[in-house]
């Protein structure tokens, strides 16, 4: 058991581990709705659009987290607003905003020669989380779980039957905007762990894994969360012992879990026949 405990003598490993578990919990539980509502593309887009926010915050020495949240929320509202007018289809609106914002981020970066944090933003730096970061991550985790619990029946109903929601006066748009803002916050937290490029994996892979294993929503959330937290743990230790990128290791563990679930399900179906 020493190999499990040894790394924890370092403060950066302890805070990294705590961050990985909290990020896994947040991303996976919200990710279940991302998968069920076919929003995988939006999750990826939001992760990319926070880049200019991060850069602007960095250049002005503001809080990076705050900059990312502002950019994410603005994009979330922008997507909703652009596609609501129905002149542009939603997937097109997302594509336009996401590439435009990402390009703006790269442009801003290219104006500064001494921008050292770029790889941290793109690929995550979970071992570099500060106490402030950890507080923010915990705050987002509590907020997301609280909202998912309080508005469970509305989220569920608008996901599978928005028509009935509208008939009883519950506007699906309200829920959708709320979910997009929540998603923006979650994505910013995910970036801490695995970076802009891979955050979407933390949202959708554990949830997709869970959806292969059960067709009950609460159970799906529990399985997704367990998959994400285990992946965080495995990824962190892999990075400690083999000096590989922690973000990549976390995501690959998620992918491996999905592969196993897929295999298990296929085999089970064979046996059934």
């Amino acid at each position, binding site marked *: 058991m020493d190999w499990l405990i040894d790394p924890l003598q370092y403060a950066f490993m302890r805070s990294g581990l705590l961050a990985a578990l909290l990020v896994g919990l947040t991303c996976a539980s919200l990710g279940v709705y991302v998968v069920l509502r076919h929003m995988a593309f939006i999750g990826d887009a939001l992760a990319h659009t926070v880049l200019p926010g991060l850069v602007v915050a960095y250049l002005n020495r503001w809080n990076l987290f705050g900059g990312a949240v502002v950019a994410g929320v603005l994009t979330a509202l922008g997507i909703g607003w652009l596609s609501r007018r129905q002149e542009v289809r939603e997937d097109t609106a997302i594509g336009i905003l996401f590439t435009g914002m990402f390009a703006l981020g790269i442009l801003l970066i290219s104006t500064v020669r001494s921008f050292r944090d770029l790889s941290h933003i793109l690929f995550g730096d979970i071992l570099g989380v500060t106490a402030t970061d950890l507080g923010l991550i915990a705050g987002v985790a509590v907020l997301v779980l609280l909202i998912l619990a309080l508005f469970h029946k509305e989220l569920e109903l608008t996901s599978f039957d928005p028509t009935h929601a*509208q008939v009883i006066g519950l506007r699906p748009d309200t829920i959708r905007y709320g979910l997009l803002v929540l998603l923006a916050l979650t994505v910013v937290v995910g970036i801490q762990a695995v970076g802009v490029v891979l955050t979407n994996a933390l949202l959708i892979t554990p949830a997709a894994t869970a959806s292969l294993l059960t067709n009950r929503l609460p159970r799906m959330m529990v399985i997704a969360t367990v998959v994400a937290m285990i992946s965080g743990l495995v990824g962190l230790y892999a990075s400690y012992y083999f000096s590989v990128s922690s973000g990549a290791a976390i995501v690959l563990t998620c992918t491996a879990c999905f592969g196993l679930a897929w295999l298990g399900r296929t085999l089970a179906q064979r046996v059934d026949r």
Partner: protein
Amino acid sequence: MKESIIPALPYNPRSFAEPIPGAPALEALNISAGYPSAGSPALRGVSLRVPVGARVALVGPNGAGKSTLLKAAAGLLPVEGGELRIFGQPIGVCQPRVAYLPQRSEIDWRFPINVHRLVLTGRYVHLGWLKRPGAHDHHLVKQVLIQLGLEHLAGRQIGQLSGGQQQRALLARALAQEADLLLLDEPLNAVDAETRAIVTEVLAGLKQQGKTAVVATHDLGRLETDFDGALYISEGREVSPPPGAFVGLPVGQELAWTG
């Protein structure tokens, strides 16, 4: 559960108007309605009066405007011209009293939810934000599931039901709402004999309770046994019934000038 400490927060605070005494359950005067994006409205100048306690069929081919009329009454589509009233009130202010049964294609049947919870969503209009369904709500759901012969399927994921069973689950939800006016869009479309018999029974039961039902159908077979009146629609307008077809109590166009 200390549910009483949670204040009532309805989804639509203006939706609890009282019916106007003596007003028909559903009244349309020369209304036009349709999808805003479509060029011309799907429904043009249709009039209708459904007295409280009546069961009325909307009959017509696919694309005639039956669904449009029901959707407008359910508040899903804007009324572009004419007047549409429910219990004498404008659309949207009597929401808890109006249940709407959508066509099956409106629902994501792969979503991980079971039959009991699907039917439970019929209670949400009475709960509003933050309140969780209580013992009374669950009891009601169990009762309607028994009434519709679905009690043994309560724990099934909704996608694992047959077409007829899905249709019955949607009807169960409409009943669980305990509404006074039921707007049913094609509840008999492509269903098995068992479902058909159960729907007939449900319509008779509603009649006994003094409730009102407006049902879109393109099935001319059982109009006389299941309904009190019929309105024939084609291409968005009221048309005269086919020779020898069931008419029942007058519900259509003549109201535009007498009423």
